[in-house]
């Protein structure tokens, strides 16, 4: 018997994978003595070396902070070669080439860019591959006869899960068009401001007579495209605001531009001074520029590609005239027969027409114990086939499945969840109203005591200088920066409201299986009946060497910690005779050995190594805590949050885990159904739910903040506010720090812009600021907010390094 935890932590700090850099739990060696964490990483390493792409590791070590392990589970992606797919996704480039667009999961850094654009070296049928880092999309051009499935297999093997995209849907096209048109507007206004300024200086410098007149006319002509073209976004947004009977912060800008231009034209015609053309151009240019920066920052953060898009590309094995055909899920019809292999997720709801098996329904019900199913039974999409192959007659597809309906409920939940009222917006609205009132009053006052020219000057200056643009920028910018920074740390946050809500959190509610625990079997106890422990472990390693079964992985994990590196090689003279439900049977050096199930109940499994009939060792398998669970729970308690376990699992399991984590029994809740989880969450104040699986999805969407962890089914991902694509719980602490720090920056920004507005307003009131100064100062305040945010969020980067 041994103490597992200490061994684990010691070993993990020592070795890391030569391909992905992850800690090695069980060792894979290659011929040249490199060590890897899995067979997938080993084969990718070999592949890259063979094609002289070893430089990848140089870039990776230099620039990448995250590991990109190779995918072990191979998929053949044959459905990408079907006619349906070709018609819908593939674009003909020329007579001899065609292209496809993939969205890639897990693209992070320069090393990814380098490797992904070197694809032609790995497969000579690939003509070119171009990656767009900001959208994580890869465009692959192939020879006409090449197969797309092969490319997908390659990408998958390298560790980037590929999702084919239809060539630019309408939505993306629109975004691109908007981007370009905004850029054009900026270009026009920039050119106009520079030229207008030249002639304006001439006028300020004292040009007179014909010169002043012609300069004014030139400036009028130059300002025309700015007012009629570049400033369109302000008019639109102001008008939209008026239509919906609310007030937009663009309203004062639109009013200022139109008034200033009209008065400017009239003054030019009447040969009066003051025509404001320079102010208009500078104002529009600087404002559009800050909008563009904001927009770019926004795009860089989360919502790159709709999740729905990603979900409908699963391959399904359909049975047509007793042959297996791989098709895409959206091609299926009711009454089709679908074959589900061992370890695959059921794609549809239906009736079993052939085969017996056990199903893991945990994604639907949270029950970890597999359930036996047989012919004639109804089975549901989202459950996992743990046993042998099953043929299922399709009854419901997509949205109509039980899982699909859960998705539906979740999406409805989105609209119920009103976005928290944005205080900055409220302040802006009040500000806009008061600015208008003050401006009008000032205009009237100065018109009376002096003349309407003076009045207009002051009123315009007030409107321009107090435009709450910095205020409008203060909140979104800080949030967007932290959202994208968090994204780089594998924390994906749905929207900024989540960050703010997180600061109100009081209770952290954890699901058990897969969240606090690893979610799969690990060896918790070993009992050796022989003295030669290393030989025994080597025997097991030999038997399980080629297996990817969860039990085999748990064995390799255990062996990785308890057997010396040099001994972790299988015996050479060995054959595997039989693999069945009963166990693995093999012959090693002319002696027969077997690994058999001794005892198996819902939460525990005992497996024995036998030589012939004599027992050599027994191993107890159980789901165990994650490495950092205890630390994270303790840290949360130290920060004065209460911690609760909410699980669908039975009482004894929950109690065991709860004791290990030092969570008192009144905070442990077992055998809670998905519906009850909902109720429970609404009974406590400000809960943060952390979990995975569709059974948590509803609960997650009904909590203050819902967090889903890696390994979660897509339902949880859709429902959650935060998705952490990393199994480590420590990310939750990181998330808390990010939210706290961001809110600090936001508050600072708000305070600055309000102060600026107050000072600007009082100076303008007494005529110290001309409209031109206003046009310069106002965007300057936006810039200040911009820099303050960038400096403020820089600290977040360092934050991650401490943890």
């Amino acid at each position, binding site marked *: 018997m041994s103490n597992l935890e200490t061994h684990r932590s010691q070993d993990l700090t020592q070795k890391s994978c030569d391909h992905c850099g992850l800690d090695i739990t069980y060792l894979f060696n290659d011929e040249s003595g490199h060590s890897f964490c899995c067979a997938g990483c080993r084969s990718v390493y070999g592949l890259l070396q063979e*094609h002289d792409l070893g430089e990848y590791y140089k870039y990776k070590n230099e620039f990448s902070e995250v590991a990109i392990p190779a995918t072990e589970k191979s998929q053949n992606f044959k459905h990408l070669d079907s006619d349906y797919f070709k018609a819908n996704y593939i674009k003909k480039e020329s007579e001899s080439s065609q292209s496809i667009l993939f969205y890639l999961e897990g693209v992070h850094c320069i090393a990814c*860019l380098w490797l992904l654009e070197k694809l032609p*070296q790995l497969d000579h049928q690939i003509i070119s591959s171009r990656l767009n*880092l900001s959208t994580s999309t890869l465009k692959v051009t192939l020879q006409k006869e090449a197969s797309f499935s092969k490319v997908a297999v390659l990408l998958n093997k390298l560790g980037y899960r590929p999702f084919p995209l239809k060539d630019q849907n309408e939505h993306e096209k629109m975004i691109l068009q908007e981007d370009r048109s905004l850029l054009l507007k900026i270009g026009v206004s920039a050119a106009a401001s520079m030229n207008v300024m030249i002639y304006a200086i001439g006028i300020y410098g004292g040009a007179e007579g014909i010169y002043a007149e012609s300069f004014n006319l030139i400036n009028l002509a130059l300002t025309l495209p700015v007012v009629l073209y570049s400033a369109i976004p302000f008019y639109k947004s102001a008008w939209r605001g008026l239509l919906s009977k609310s007030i937009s912060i663009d309203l004062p800008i639109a009013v200022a531009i139109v008034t200033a231009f009209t008065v400017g034209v009239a003054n030019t015609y009447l040969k009066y001074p003051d025509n404001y053309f320079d102010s208009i151009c500078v104002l529009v240019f600087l404002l559009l520029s800050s909008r563009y920066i904001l927009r770019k920052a926004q795009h860089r953060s989360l919502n790159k590609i709709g999740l729905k898009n990603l979900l409908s590309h699963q391959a399904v094995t359909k049975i047509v005239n007793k042959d297996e055909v791989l098709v895409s899920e959206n091609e299926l019809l009711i009454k089709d027969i679908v074959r589900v292999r061992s370890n695959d997720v059921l794609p549809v709801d239906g009736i079993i027409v052939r085969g017996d098996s056990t199903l893991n329904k945990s994604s639907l019900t949270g029950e970890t114990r597999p359930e036996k199913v047989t012919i004639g039974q109804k089975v549901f999409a989202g459950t996992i086939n743990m046993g042998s192959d099953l043929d299922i007659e399709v009854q419901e597809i997509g949205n109509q499945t039980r899982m699909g309906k859960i998705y539906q409920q979740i999406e409805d939940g989105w609209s119920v969840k009103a976005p928290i009222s944005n205080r900055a917006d409220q302040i802006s609205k009040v500000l806009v109203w008061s600015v208008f009132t003050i401006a009008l009053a000032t205009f009237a006052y100065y018109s009376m005591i002096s003349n309407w020219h003076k009045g207009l000057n002051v009123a315009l200056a007030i409107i321009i200088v107090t435009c709450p643009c910095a205020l409008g920028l203060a909140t979104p910018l800080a949030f967007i920066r932290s959202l994208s920074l968090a994204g780089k740390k594998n924390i994906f946050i749905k929207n900024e409201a989540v960050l703010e809500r997180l600061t109100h959190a009081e209770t952290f509610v954890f699901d058990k299986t897969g969240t606090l625990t690893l979610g799969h079997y690990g060896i918790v106890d070993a009992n050796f009946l022989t003295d030669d422990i290393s030989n025994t472990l080597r025997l097991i390693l030999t038997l399980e060497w080629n297996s990817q079964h969860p039990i085999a992985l748990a064995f390799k994990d255990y062996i990785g910690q308890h057997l010396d590196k040099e001994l972790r090689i299988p015996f050479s003279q060995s054959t595997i005779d039989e693999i069945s439900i009963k166990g693995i049977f093999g012959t090693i050096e002319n002696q027969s050995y077997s690994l058999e199930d001794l005892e198996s109940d819902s939460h525990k499994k005992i497996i024995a190594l036998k030589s012939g009939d004599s027992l050599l060792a027994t191993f107890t398998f159980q789901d165990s805590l994650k490495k950092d669970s205890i630390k994270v729970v303790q840290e949360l308690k130290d920060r004065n949050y209460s911690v609760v376990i909410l699980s669908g699992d039975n009482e004894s399991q929950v109690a065991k885990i709860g004791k290990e984590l030092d969570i008192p029994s009144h905070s442990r809740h077992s055998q809670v159904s998905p519906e009850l989880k909902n109720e429970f969450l609404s009974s406590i104040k400000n809960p943060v739910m952390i979990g995975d699986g569709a059974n948590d999805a509803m609960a997650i969407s009904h909590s203050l903040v819902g967090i889903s962890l890696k390994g979660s089914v897509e339902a949880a991902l859709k429902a959650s506010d935060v998705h952490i694509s990393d199994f480590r719980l420590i990310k939750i602490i990181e998330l808390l720090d990010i939210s706290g720090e961001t809110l600090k920056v936001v508050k600072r920004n708000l305070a600055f812009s309000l102060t600026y507005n107050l000072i600007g307003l009082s100076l303008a009131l007494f005529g110290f600021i001309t409209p031109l100064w206003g046009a310069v100062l106002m965007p300057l305040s936006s810039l200040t907010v911009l820099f303050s945010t960038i400096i403020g969020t820089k600290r977040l980067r360092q934050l991650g390094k401490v943890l």
Partner: protein
Amino acid sequence: MNAMIILVPFALILGLLFVGVFVWAVKNGQFDDLDTPAKRMLFEDKKHIKNHDNKEENHE
């Protein structure tokens, strides 16, 4: 000062020309992806030598 009659239109035409070039660049998609090219330029060019001998090595 009569030079202004030539210089001013010339300056304006020059300005217009640059706006035209900018419009062309935007429509051509030069500004669509601002992240990737910035990083792509960091890679060193390297003459590619195919090496298929690796498999044979290290077999003792």
